[in-house]
């Protein structure tokens, strides 16, 4: 069942590589309200960058499509990120998640999903050939002690 979000933001943008930096900065700005540590913020930015780059390189290899990005703050200091496309889909998700596996040529390292898994707590990938892919990532941020008033 879907957890009710305490706050959320949705973004939609074309799959141009210049938007990779926009996407991670926008999510970082939204996540700032959870008062993350610098390390947590960098982990989130890195994971967003990987997910959005996958869409740009793999979902829409020969065209510009739409990237849908949603960030939600859920109870328990959890940040949930959804990156969705309507591109060509991943033929074998388990294989795609293996380290060093890539169909992206020499420009890509095949480490995108490994880094998302490593930097976030949970990664779910759903894909239908010809219909698109949805990547959902969750990260629980360490609660920060409130400063005395």
């Amino acid at each position, binding site marked *: 069942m879907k957890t009710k979000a305490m706050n959320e933001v949705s973004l939609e943008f074309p799959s141009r590589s210049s938007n990779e930096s926009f996407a991670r900065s926008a999510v970082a700005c939204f996540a700032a309200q959870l008062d993350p540590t610098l390390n947590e913020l960098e982990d989130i930015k*890195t994971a967003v960058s990987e997910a959005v*780059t996958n869409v740009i390189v793999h979902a829409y290899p020969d065209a510009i499509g739409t990237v849908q990005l949603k960030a939600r703050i859920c109870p328990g200091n959890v940040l949930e990120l959804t990156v969705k496309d309507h591109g060509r889909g991943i033929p074998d998700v388990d294989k795609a998640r293996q380290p060093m596996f890539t169909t992206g040529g020499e420009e890509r390292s095949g480490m995108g999903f490994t880094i998302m898994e490593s930097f976030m707590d949970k990664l779910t990938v759903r894909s239908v050939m010809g219909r698109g892919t949805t990547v959902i990532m969750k990260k629980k941020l360490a609660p920060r002690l409130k400063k005395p008033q």
Partner: protein
Amino acid sequence: MEIHAKSADRNLLLELSGELDHHGARNALRELEMAVDAALPKKLVLDMSGVTFMDSSGIALILRAQQRIELLDGSLLVCNVPDQARRVLDAAGIGRLVTIR
């Protein structure tokens, strides 16, 4: 993403600065290859101190540099890696393949 090259006696130092993501890595890969082809180094050093952000695109760039220098029987050293980029390299286990200092 910018690359500044300094070369002397078949030593090539490449100073990388800016955001090393997929967008930035495209030009960076080309510049790296051009610099290596011009200098034909025995020792290649990638100085990462100016890198403000890096994702797995940076891993591809480092592995490409490693391939290129192996063809020349040379060695690669990656140095001054900022904390965020270091965590990306560690998550991917790149330290087993490349010398990082």
